[in-house]
């Protein structure tokens, strides 16, 4: 059926027995679920039961590439992780760029599964069809960067790609990340803690295989055209990265500030964390992922002042959540906090949210330094923030509670519930949905909790639509459904979302790219595949006990924004319910948010999930 685009193999490693097997992946799974996120969701449905606890040996973790991962085209860098996530306690999908996905394909595999648990800390090394383990107690305690360096020092000089976890994962911090190569990450949901629960500190992969391509000449032509397009269409992305959203979202009145107590500050109080400040005062060079000509990563370093020496590549979400959300208008402090999160191996979005919560609790006198080893953590205090991040990773002071994430915090201290903005246990990204009602619906219905990617990034659509504006309710169900289905198939392709426009991977994609790579005309089916993935993921969540009551927004969203361009706006229960009713109806789900048999039949899902 496919003349290219797939290796057709899955590598399954049992960490308990140290055995590995190579399994065939049937073509029908690719045809119906494409790869990446879709293939991961299908695998999850088949192998991870509703009652599996995230940080036990029963849980498994899988890495999944798409048909374009590693293909000879620009920015074919993406791959996915799927596992039961400890932050929400439910299905987790997360994507990353970097080199690991392409190298996994060179090793000969579309997917890699880890199951069981090691007796002692190890690094797993995959080279073509061989698997080795480097057991060493001294893996424990290393930062993500130290672990990568130690691993690479023990391997022959080849083109290896790596995954590493940090001390936070070792200590079971439920929002710890997996770091890919030297700075990309599976950021959200706690996949790092799952890997560490199996005593796997790191993985390395390389190989000598070549991905089969149906029409190599056509690929060259597509690649050339895409690069030409990106040179102009993504020029501003290369120059300023995603950080330019700080100014944009603040001007729109939706920049989460001081733990969502505000959503805007005058420009002079925010411009310290603008992209222009990053570029002018801290920028060192652009960073590119595998085969990417955009190179949107902004490598930055602090050379002067109290944070001198700190270095990171801060993206918008990290800047927003470690900056204005925590009352910081200093890019040097944000770079330092971003670096600390990267070294410790923690999600910057959740970390920023929960440190901001601590800051607000201090501000309101609801906690004292006595509970936190004497450390006061107030809005705008960069040094205290760095120390608090360390406390979380080490489970010290208030970090003992914070490390358990939003759900764990609310269980331990129910009186703090009003100060955490989350959905299903996953804290909000850097867009206050009270200024864009569609973002509220996106967060409420995202398959992994509050997320602007899986849930759908509605900001552009809510400003460009001729049918509604950002504060309307009607039409948002249709917008969010379309964005989610679109994103679901893009996450299954293996390319970066930044470049997808150059290939036309929107709601009406052209056939040429996937035809050239796989020899199969996926294009007419891509949005249906996306819808199928969305329904499979919802079916997983329903199996795990999720229903309408969980598609909710936190109390703070029901309060009006106090100032700024979106002043006075809020999302009440009635408003959310109106959007949910439209969304569920268009999805073919019942009033409780459960996919009805008719939609499962139309999407030909029943045979896969019966």
């Amino acid at each position: 059926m496919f003349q290219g685009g797939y290796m057709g193999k899955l590598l399954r490693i049992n960490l308990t027995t140290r055995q590995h097997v190579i399994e065939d992946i049937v073509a029908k799974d690719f045809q119906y679920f494409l790869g990446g996120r879709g293939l991961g969701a299908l695998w999850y449905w088949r192998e991870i039961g509703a009652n599996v606890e995230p940080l036990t040996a029963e849980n498994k973790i899988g890495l999944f590439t798409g048909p374009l991962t590693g293909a000879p085209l620009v920015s074919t860098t993406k791959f996915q992780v799927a596992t039961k996530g400890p932050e929400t306690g439910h299905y987790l999908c997360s994507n990353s760029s970097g080199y690991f996905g392409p190298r996994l394909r060179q090793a000969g595999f579309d997917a890699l599964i880890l199951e069981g648990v090691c007796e002692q800390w190890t690094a797993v090394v995959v080279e073509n069809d061989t698997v080795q383990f480097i057991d060493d107690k001294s893996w424990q305690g290393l930062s993500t960067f130290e672990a990568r360096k130690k691993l690479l020092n023990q391997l022959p000089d080849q083109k290896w790609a790596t995954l590493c976890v940090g001390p936070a994962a070792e200590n079971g911090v439920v929002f710890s990340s997996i770091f890919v190569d030297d700075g990309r990450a599976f950021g959200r949901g706690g996949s790092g803690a799952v890997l560490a629960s199996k005593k796997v500190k790191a993985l390395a992969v390389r190989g000598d295989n070549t991905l089969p391509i149906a029409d190599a000449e056509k690929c060259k032509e597509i690649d050339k055209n895409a690069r030409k397009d990106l040179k102009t269409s993504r020029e501003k992305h290369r120059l300023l990265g995603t950080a330019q959203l700080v100014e944009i979202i603040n001007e729109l009145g939706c920049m989460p500030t001081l733990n969502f107590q505000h959503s805007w500050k005058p420009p002079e109080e925010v411009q310290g964390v603008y992209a222009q400040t990053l570029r002018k005062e801290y920028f060192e060079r652009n960073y590119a992922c595998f085969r990417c000509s955009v190179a949107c990563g902004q490598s930055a370093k602090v050379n002067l002042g109290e944070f001198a020496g700190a270095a990171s590549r801060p993206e918008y979400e990290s800047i927003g959540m470690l900056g204005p959300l925590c009352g910081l208008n200093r890019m040097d402090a944000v770079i330092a906090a971003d670096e600390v999160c990267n070294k410790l191996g923690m999600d910057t979005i959740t970390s920023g949210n929960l440190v901001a919560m601590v800051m607000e609790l201090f501000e309101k006198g609801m906690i004292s330094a006595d509970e936190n080893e004497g450390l006061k953590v107030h809005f705008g205090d960069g040094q205290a923030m760095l120390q608090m991040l360390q406390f979380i990773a080490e489970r010290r002071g208030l970090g003992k509670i914070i490390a358990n994430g939003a759900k764990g915090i609310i269980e331990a201290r129910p009186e703090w519930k009003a100060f955490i903005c989350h959905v299903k246990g996953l804290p909000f990204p850097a867009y206050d949905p009270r200024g864009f009602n569609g973002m509220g619906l996106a967060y409420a219905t995202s398959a992994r909790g509050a997320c602007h990617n899986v849930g759908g990034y509605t900001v552009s659509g809510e400003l460009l639509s001729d049918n509604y504006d950002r504060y309307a309710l009607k039409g948002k169900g249709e917008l969010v459904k379309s964005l989610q289905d679109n994103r679901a198939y893009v996450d299954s392709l293996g390319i970066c979302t930044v470049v997808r426009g150059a290939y036309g991977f929107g709601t009406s994609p052209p056939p040429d790219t996937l035809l050239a790579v796989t020899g199969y005309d996926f294009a007419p089916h891509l949005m249906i595949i996306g819808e199928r993935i969305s329904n499979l993921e919802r079916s997983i969540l329903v199996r795990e006990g999720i229903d309408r009551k969980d598609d909710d927004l936190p109390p703070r969203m029901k309060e009006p924004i106090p100032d700024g361009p979106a002043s006075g706006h809020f999302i009440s229960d009635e408003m959310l319910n109106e959007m949910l009713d439209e969304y569920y109806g268009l999805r073919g789900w019942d009033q409780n948010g459960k996919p009805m048999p008719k939609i499962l039949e139309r999407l030909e899902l029943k045979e896969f999930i019966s």
Partner: protein
Amino acid sequence: MATISIKFLGGMQTITGKTSVQISIDSDSQVKDLSDHLQSLGFDPESSDTIVVLNGRGLGQWAPDRRIQDGDELIVFPSISGG
């Protein structure tokens, strides 16, 4: 005459070399006339890579014949997401 401000956000500042401008336009100008002014500044309001917002709402979400008022504020920024 009506005076309106136009802010250029993020990468759009590279096109104008400025963070904002104020322009005076005929007081009987309408929303539909703003496209010409933006084009004269180097922007294509029809481009999917450009988002134009008038007083907090998308430019296309205003009635084309809505009269421009003194103090109206436009912001122009690149279509960008993620992070």
